[in-house]
């Protein structure tokens, strides 16, 4: 398509313009954000599920529900601890990796973070009260201590999404001769785009946490543990996940409104629209090789219908956008379709489950459904990660869309920044292994009949070990 000399010139420009620290910084951010986001979902969604379970236990005087709530509280203690520290990593990295962004726009985008900090504060306080309050407070007051966490999860997620929405659709300032002026921080906190983006993430968090927790009990049932404990442990999170899963396609669709105006390059990448076609097809799969779409399954008209809400309005193609403003198209497209595909599958599956249940058929008796339910958690994780990849990679080469390019934001680092990524991979792997080992050992001990999990280094235990 392009003449060879233009390609060479562009390649030269790319190597010249791209700081050595850019790629490792982006990978570092992707790793730490991608890891934290899973735990953040638990932080947002788990408290409401614990609250429900605990309330069922108190209302019905149901010891099974109370025991489940108590165990979930202990699991959340582990998950929230590593969630808190991995979130701190992100706070540091905002400044360490992206000083250009924070130095220039810190006072524009910062206020939502201040409110997020308040939400996090309350979450940490009530977590402490709730966790250590078992048996030490009147039960009716104790159960209420988990409720603030469900609310702060909403506030915290909203605030973080406000910053991300701002990066996608910057507002609340003016650029005059390269200087940021007329800063209106409240406009960043309360812009309309934030609300829809938040709703998408919030619902996604309930899907991820709900399917993952339900999946744990599905595995138990597959192994023949079909008691009241497993049925209740499955159903409560599954109800949350079900409501979220059927809501999500609509929220996602609303979020897509006007993307052709806001971020045409991102939409073109999502839809793999190299050229502007009227009506646009829906391209399933496929990659762009040398400016040509290959190996995709095209469904005519559907692209216009879904992306543009019109029978023939075209998706603006990448050829209408300067080459320098293209995001990495294939990754964006495939990540987007992975998210949509899994989301659709999960929505269909829960509709099927509840439909069958109404007809008196319990799919929990079917091994194939339990296997699917066990896989739904990891699938929801993949969908959420894919969604974030789609929106973040799709925003490139901009860190603040249309205003600041990612290379301008990155710190002054040499290629030695790759070392940091290497070390981080080791630490995150170790933390993952540690969490899995500890959580599995907790489950094992609970199955063995231990109600409380005493400190392993408590005196009586130590003397046991020495015997």
């Amino acid at each position, binding site marked *: 398509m392009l003449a060879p000399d233009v390609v060479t010139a562009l390649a030269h420009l790319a190597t010249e313009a791209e700081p050595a620290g850019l790629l490792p910084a982006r990978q570092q951010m992707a790793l730490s954000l991608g890891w934290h986001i899973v735990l953040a979902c638990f932080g947002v969604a788990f408290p409401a599920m614990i609250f429900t379970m605990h309330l069922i236990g108190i209302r019905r005087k149901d010891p099974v529900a109370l025991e489940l709530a108590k165990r979930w509280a202990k699991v959340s203690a582990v998950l929230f601890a590593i969630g808190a520290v991995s979130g701190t990593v992100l706070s540091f990295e905002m*400044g360490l990796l992206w*000083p250009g962004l*924070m130095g*220039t726009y810190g006072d524009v985008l910062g206020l939502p973070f201040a409110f997020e900090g308040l939400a996090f504060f309350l979450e940490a306080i009530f977590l402490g009260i709730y966790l250590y309050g078992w048996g030490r407070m009147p039960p009716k007051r104790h159960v209420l201590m988990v409720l603030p966490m469900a609310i702060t999860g909403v506030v915290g997620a909203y605030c973080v999404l406000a910053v991300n929405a701002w990066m996608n659709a910057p507002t609340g300032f003016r650029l005059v001769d390269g200087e940021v002026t007329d800063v209106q921080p409240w406009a960043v906190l309360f812009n309309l785009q934030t609300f829809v983006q938040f709703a998408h993430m919030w619902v996604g968090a309930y899907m991820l946490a709900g399917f993952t927790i339900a999946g744990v009990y599905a595995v138990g049932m597959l192994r023949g543990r079909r008691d009241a404990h497993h049925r209740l442990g499955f159903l409560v999170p599954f109800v949350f996940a079900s409501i979220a899963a059927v809501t999500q396609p609509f929220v996602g669709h609303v979020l897509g409104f006007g993307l052709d105006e806001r971020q045409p390059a991102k939409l073109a990448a999502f839809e793999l629209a190299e050229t502007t076609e009227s009506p646009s097809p829906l391209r399933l799969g496929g990659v762009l090789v040398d400016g040509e779409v290959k190996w995709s399954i095209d469904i005519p008209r559907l692209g216009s219908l879904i992306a543009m809400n019109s029978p023939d309005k075209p998706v603006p193609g990448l050829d209408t956008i300067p080459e320098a403003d293209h995001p990495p198209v294939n990754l964006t497209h495939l990540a987007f379709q992975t998210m949509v595909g899994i989301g659709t599958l999960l929505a269909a599956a829960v509709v099927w489950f509840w439909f069958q249940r109404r007809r008196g058929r319990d799919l929990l008796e079917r091994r194939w459904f339990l296997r699917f339910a066990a896989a739904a958690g990891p699938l929801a994780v993949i969908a959420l990660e894919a969604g974030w990849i789609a929106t973040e990679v799709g925003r490139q080469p901009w860190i603040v869309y249309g205003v600041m390019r990612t290379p301008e934001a990155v*710190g002054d680092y040499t290629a030695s920044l790759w070392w940091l990524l290497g070390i981080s991979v080791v630490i995150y792997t170790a933390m993952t292994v540690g969490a899995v*080992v500890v959580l599995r050992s907790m489950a094992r001990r609970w199955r063995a009949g231990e109600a409380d999990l005493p400190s392993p280094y408590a005196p009586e235990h130590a003397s046991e070990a020495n015997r």
Partner: protein
Amino acid sequence: MSLELAVAAALFVGVIAYAVLGGADFGSGFFDLTAGSSRRGAELRTLVDHSIGPVWEANHVWLIYVLVIWWTGFPESFAAAMSTLVLPLLLALLGIVLRGASFAFRKYAATLAQARLFGIVFATSSIITPFFLGTVAGGIASGRVPLDGAGDRWSSWLNPTSLFGGVIAVGTCAFLAGVFLVADARRSGQERLAEELRVRALVVGAVTGVLVFAALVPIDRDAPTLAAGLEGRAAPLVALAGLAGAVTMVLLWRRRYAVARAGAILAVAAVVSGWGVGQYPWLLVDEVTITDAAGATATLQGLLVAVGLAVVVVVPPLAYLFRLTQSEEWSRPEH
């Protein structure tokens, strides 16, 4: 008080709160590390676990509070400090991550071997973190962070002020933790443990006190602006730190543990405030003042709204949490 100064004051309140409350949690790692073998140290490690378990995450949020107010209120100076002091900040971050994760893992570890591994990581990282955060403070206070962020990435924190800052941070954390743990041990009726901790807290207090005042000598040459502030405007705070520290030692000696906690808090808060007042009006010493570093006015006003909201919605539950942890029901062992 100007708007910029009000926001800077709110930020510094966060620094003090983190140094005192977060510091006491980190300091318990020192006692955990030096508690001896699994059998000998079991009682103390259980106490550490019980003392900081309900509160460490809440206390940790003060750090987030500080970072957020800094980058929102004074963005350019934040970016500059992050760029120049990237190495100690990354090392402190490593400590923060390992401390939190391994503390949670240890509590629910299945075997003694696992608990030992997580325990060593928890205790060492609890010492690493305040040390490197102390070197960061030293770098800023000695005027080694230029506003363009292009300061030397090694000498900015490998210098006398930074190294003393790091060691003092470790010492004050351990001193606070010692005093708090003694009181906790007494409240849960572990008199023998309290006796043991009392002696160690006295030693830590003496060493830290000597370090704090010994640091004034190298600081005089290495960080003249800070030194001038410490000898001038901040001199009452330096005196207060010495006095409160000495009173705390006497109270510890006479086994008045509950009151000693107030003395320890006052002493450490005075040390940290001494640094803050000492380097006033600079935000990055010799580089940019608080007023010049401030971001947009509307944002500063917004931050004060957030801080006001924090006083209303965060402080009461925080006080409730602290009151619960000091109550009779919460002092008996779990389960």
